[in-house]
C-alpha cells in the first residue's frame, strides 16, 4: 500500500485497442484536489473514463482506499465511493430535474439538497421541468449537484464549467472546497483557470497521452500552465 | 450420398458446357431411375393456417398410393408421390404446380387446400392433366379435367337440416360464418333449405377470415334473439373460439348448433365442456363403423403406430383420390383428358366412408350427421348416396 487514497498506476488504454493514454500514474491523497489540465485531445477525458470503469485499461491498475478496482463497472465503483460526472450528456434529458436527483433515492425526497438549491436557485425553480430543457451551463450545475449529493469520498469531474457563468463557477468552487474540507478527494479535468485557481492543491498537465508536469499548485505559476495549454 | 451428389454435379457441368439448360442435368439422371413409375403431385398443407392437417394428409395419401400399388398400380405402373406445400399463397402454390408438371413430370395432381389455391392451380394446369380436388368446398366450379371429391353445401344440408329439427326447439336459425366464399355460398344455399322446411333466418354474422376474432358480440346477440338453431360456417380456430364462447355464456342447453366444417381436430379444441348439443354434418368421421373404415384406420395404425395422425374428412379425401384415379384409369386405359373425363362419368368406387359415384365431375356420397359427445363424434344418422346437384358437363 502506497500513500494515496485514489491511485492511478501506469494506466494505458483508450477506445478499442487504441492507446490514447500511455503509462499515466496519478496519486491523490485524502482531502486533496488534483486538477488535470492539457490541450483538447491529449487524453484527459479518456484517462477519467479508464479510472472510473467506463473503459477497460489495456494495462495498469486503479486503487481506491487500497482496494484494486481496475475494470470494475461504474455502478460497482459508486457503491464503494467513487463518483463520476461526465463531460458530455451530463443529465437525463427525458427525466425532470427532480427525477434526475431522486432517481437513486428510495424515498424520492430531496430535503437534504436545500443547501445546493440555495446556491443554485435556478435548479429549484425548474424541478418539475425536463432536464432536456435546461441550458448547457444549467445541466452542468445539475450534474455537479447530483455528483456531490452522492456523498462519495472520491469524486471525478470532467470539465464541470463548460458553458457555466462566471458567478456560478465561483459557487461551484466554493462547494468543491467545502467538500474537500470535509475530507473528500477530487480529480477535476478542467480548462477554466478561474476554477483551477480556486480549488487545486496540485496540478497535473497531460500532453500526447502522457503526464508532462505534476506539481503543487503553489509551485506552478499561471505562465507555465498557459504555455502547456497553447500550441 | 456424396457420390450421387458428385455425379449430379458432373452431369450438370457436362450438360451446361454442351449448352443445355440447367434443367437438363436431372433429366440425364432420370432414365437411370425406374422409367415406368407414374408420378402424382400431391398438394398438402405443410404450412399456413391448415398445416394442422398436413401430417394426416400425407399419411392418407401415402396409404392411398400403397393400396393402389399393392393391386398393381395405375395403368400397370407403380405410382410415386411428389408432395408439394399447398399452405402458401395461391400464386406460390401455382408455381409449385408448374414445377410438378415441368420438372417432376407428374401425370396427375391431387390437392387438399382452399378454393383460392385451387383456382391458382387450375389456371396453370389448364386441364392438361387430371386434377383431383378432395376437400369440402362450396361447389359451382366446372373447370375442365378437374374432379371434385369433397362435400358441397347441398350434400351437407339438404337431408341434414330436416333431421336436425328433431332435436331443436323451433325453426329459427342464426347463421354465423367466416367472411369468405365457402361460408357465404353455404349460407345462401342453406337459406333455400331453411325456407323449404318452413324455418326462418333471424340474423347472420360474418367474421373476417384469419383475423384475431372474438365472438362475445354475436353470442350476446344470440342470447337475446334465442334462435333454435345456430348454423355455423366458421373454420379452424374461429370455430373453436365461437363454440367455447357460446358454451361459456351458457347457451348450449337450449340452442342446437350445427357446424358445416367440424372435424376431429376442431372438436378437440372445442373440448368436452363446450360441445353439448353441437352437431356436425360431413362425408366422413374417423370413428364411423364401416368395415372399409376399420381397414383404413387399421392400416394407418399399423404403419404409424401411436403416432398416426388424426384422420378427418379433410385428409381422408386424398386416400379416396388414389382409389378414384385407379378406378377411372382401369376403365379409360389412359390419362388423356378426354378419355379420363369420359371414363370418370358415372364411375363408382369404394372408400372408407362407403361407396362414391362420380356424377358430372362431383361425387355422390354418404353424408353423416354426428352429435358431439365430449370430444368424440357419435353418428346419429347416415344419408346414403346424397347427390351434389352440381351440373358440370
Amino acid at each position, binding site marked *: 500500500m502506497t500513500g494515496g487514497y485514489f491511485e492511478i498506476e501506469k494506466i494505458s488504454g483508450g477506445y478499442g485497442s487504441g492507446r490514447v493514454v500511455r503509462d499515466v500514474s496519478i496519486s491523490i491523497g485524502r482531502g486533496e484536489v488534483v486538477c488535470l489540465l492539457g490541450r483538447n485531445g491529449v487524453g484527459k477525458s479518456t484517462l477519467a473514463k479508464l479510472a*472510473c470503469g467506463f473503459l477497460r485499461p489495456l494495462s495498469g491498475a486503479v486503487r481506491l482506499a487500497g482496494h484494486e478496482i481496475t475494470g470494475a463497472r461504474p455502478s460497482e465503483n459508486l457503491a464503494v465511493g467513487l463518483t463520476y460526472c*461526465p463531460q458530455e450528456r451530463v443529465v*437525463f434529458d427525458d427525466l425532470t430535474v427532480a427525477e434526475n436527483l431522486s432517481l437513486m433515492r428510495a424515498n424520492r425526497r430531496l430535503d437534504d439538497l436545500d443547501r445546493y438549491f440555495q446556491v443554485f436557485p435556478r435548479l429549484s425553480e425548474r424541478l418539475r421541468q425536463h432536464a432536456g430543457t435546461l441550458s448547457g451551463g444549467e445541466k452542468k450545475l445539475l450534474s455537479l449537484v447530483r455528483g456531490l449529493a452522492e456523498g462519495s469520498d472520491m469524486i471525478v469531474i470532467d470539465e464541470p464549467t463548460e458553458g457555466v457563468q462566471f458567478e456560478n463557477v465561483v459557487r461551484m468552487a466554493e462547494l468543491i472546497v467545502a467538500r474537500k474540507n470535509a475530507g473528500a478527494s477530487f480529480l477535476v479535468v478542467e480548462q477554466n483557470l478561474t476554477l483551477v485557481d480556486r480549488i487545486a492543491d496540485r496540478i497535473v498537465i497531460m500532453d500526447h497521452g502522457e503526464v508532462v508536469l505534476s506539481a503543487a499548485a503553489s509551485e506552478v505559476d499561471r505562465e507555465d500552465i498557459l504555455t502547456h495549454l497553447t500550441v | 450420398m456424396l457420390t450421387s451428389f458428385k455425379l449430379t454435379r458432373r452431369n450438370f457441368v457436362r450438360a451446361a458446357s454442351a449448352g443445355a439448360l440447367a434443367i437438363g442435368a436431372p433429366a440425364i439422371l432420370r432414365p437411370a431411375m425406374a422409367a415406368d413409375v407414374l408420378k402424382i403431385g400431391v398438394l398438402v398443407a405443410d404450412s399456413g393456417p391448415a*398445416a394442422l392437417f398436413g401430417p394426416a394428409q400425407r399419411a392418407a395419401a401415402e396409404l392411398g398410393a400403397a393400396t393402389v400399388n399393392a393391386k398393381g398400380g395405375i395403368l400397370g405402373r407403380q405410382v410415386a408421390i411428389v408432395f408439394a406445400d399447398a399452405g402458401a399463397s395461391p400464386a406460390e402454390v401455382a408455381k409449385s404446380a408448374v414445377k410438378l408438371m415441368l420438372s417432376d413430370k407428374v401425370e396427375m395432381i391431387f390437392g387438399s387446400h382452399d378454393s383460392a389455391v385451387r383456382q391458382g392451380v387450375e389456371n396453370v394446369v389448364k386441364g392438361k392433366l387430371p386434377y383431383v380436388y378432395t376437400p369440402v368446398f362450396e361447389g359451382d366450379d366446372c373447370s375442365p379435367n378437374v374432379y371434385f371429391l369433397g362435400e358441397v353445401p347441398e350434400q351437407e344440408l339438404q337431408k341434414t337440416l330436416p333431421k336436425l329439427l328433431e332435436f331443436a326447439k323451433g325453426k329459427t336459425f342464426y347463421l354465423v360464418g367466416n367472411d369468405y366464399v365457402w361460408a357465404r355460398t353455404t349460407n345462401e344455399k342453406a337459406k333455400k333449405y331453411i325456407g323449404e322446411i318452413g324455418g326462418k333466418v333471424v340474423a347472420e354474422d360474418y367474421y*373476417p377470415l384469419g383475423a*384475431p376474432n372474438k365472438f362475445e*358480440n354475436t353470442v350476446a346477440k344470440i342470447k337475446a334473439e334465442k334462435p333454435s338453431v345456430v348454423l355455423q360456417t366458421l373454420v379452424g380456430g374461429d370455430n373453436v373460439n365461437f363454440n367455447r364462447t357460446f358454451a361459456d355464456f*351458457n347457451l348450449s342447453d337450449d340452442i342446437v348448433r350445427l357446424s358445416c366444417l367440424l372435424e376431429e381436430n376442431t372438436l378437440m*379444441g372445442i373440448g368436452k365442456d363446450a360441445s353439448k348439443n353441437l352437431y356436425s354434418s360431413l362425408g366422413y368421421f374417423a370413428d364411423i363403423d364401416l368395415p372399409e373404415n376399420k381397414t383404413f384406420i387399421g392400416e394407418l395404425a399399423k404403419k404409424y403406430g401411436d403416432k398416426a395422425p388424426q384422420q378427418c374428412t379433410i385428409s381422408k379425401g386424398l386416400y379416396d383420390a388414389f382409389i378414384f384415379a385407379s378406378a377411372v384409369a382401369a376403365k379409360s386405359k389412359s390419362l388423356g383428358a378426354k378419355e379420363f373425363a369420359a371414363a370418370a362419368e358415372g364411375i363408382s368406387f369404394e372408400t372408407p366412408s362407403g361407396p362414391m359415384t362420380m356424377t358430372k365431375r362431383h361425387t355422390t356420397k354418404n353424408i353423416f350427421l354426428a352429435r358431439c359427445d365430449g370430444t368424440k363424434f357419435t353418428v346419429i344418422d347416415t344419408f346414403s348416396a346424397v347427390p351434389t346437384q352440381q351440373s358440370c358437363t
Partner: protein
Amino acid sequence: METLLLTQVINVVYEVLILAIIVLGLAVVMGLLNVLNIAHGEFIMIGAYTAYVVQKSGLPYVLAVPAAAGVCGIIGLVVERFLIRPLRYEPFETLLATWGLGLLLRKLVELGFGRGYRSVEIPVVGSLNFFGEAYPTYRLVLMGVSASVLAGLFLWYRRAPTGARIRAMVGNPVLAEAVGIKTRELARNTFVTGTAMAGIAGVMIAPLTPVEPFMGLAFIVNSFFALVVGGMGTVAGLFAGAGIIGGLQSVLSATVNPTTAYLAMLFLSILFLWQRPRGLFPRP
C-alpha cells in the same frame, strides 16, 4: 333488448381489459427498452401450454400462473442473454431476431405437442348475475384480475423509482451506469418481466381460445396496433391503445359487423402509423 345492451357494454369492457393484459408484456419491453419483441405472442402461447399441462396433471389452475411466469421468465432470461444483449438492444436487429425466435418457439412447441388444437377447461364454471344480467363467471374473474394487475402496475410505476430508472437507462446508458444503475441487470430484469407477463396472459386466456402452436400470431397483431395507437412507454398510452383498439372493434362489431370492425381497426392503425407514429400518449 336492454339486457342485450348491458351484455354488450360488459363485452366492450371485457375486450378492452383482456387486450390490455395481453399488450402489457409487449408494452413493457417495447415502451421501456425500445425492443419490439415479435415473439411476444409465442410467449403467450407457451403460457397457454403451461396452463394446459398444469390442468392435465390435475393441479389447481391457479398454479399455472407462477408456472407460466417461471417458464416464460426462464426462456426470457436465456433469450436476453444470448440474443437481445449480444445485439445490444438495437431496435431493428432485435426485431429481426425475435421474429426468428417466434418461428423457433412455434417449431419447438409443435415438436413437443403437435399441431393439433388443445383445449383448456374453464377453471371457474357458471355464470354470475352482474347488474341483473348473467355473465360467465370466469370472464368476470378475468376482468377483475386484469383490472387489479393494471391498477397495481400503474401505482407501482408512479411510486417506485424503477420506471424512471429504466427510462434513464434507455435515454443515457453511460450516465445511468455512472449514477449507480446496474444497467445490464435492469435491462435483463425488464425484459424477463415482459416475457413472464406474456406467460401469465397466456394462462388467463388459455381457457377461451384454441391452444395451438400458432395461436400467438393472432395476439401480436392486435397488441401491436394497440401500442401504435396508444403510444409507447406510458401507462396512459397502454390504456388508450387497448381502449381504442379493443373498444372500437367490440362496438363496431356489435353495431355494424365484424368485418367492418376489423377493417376499421386496420385503417385506424395505418392512419396512426402514417400521421402520428408515436401514438396518442408517447413517452416525452
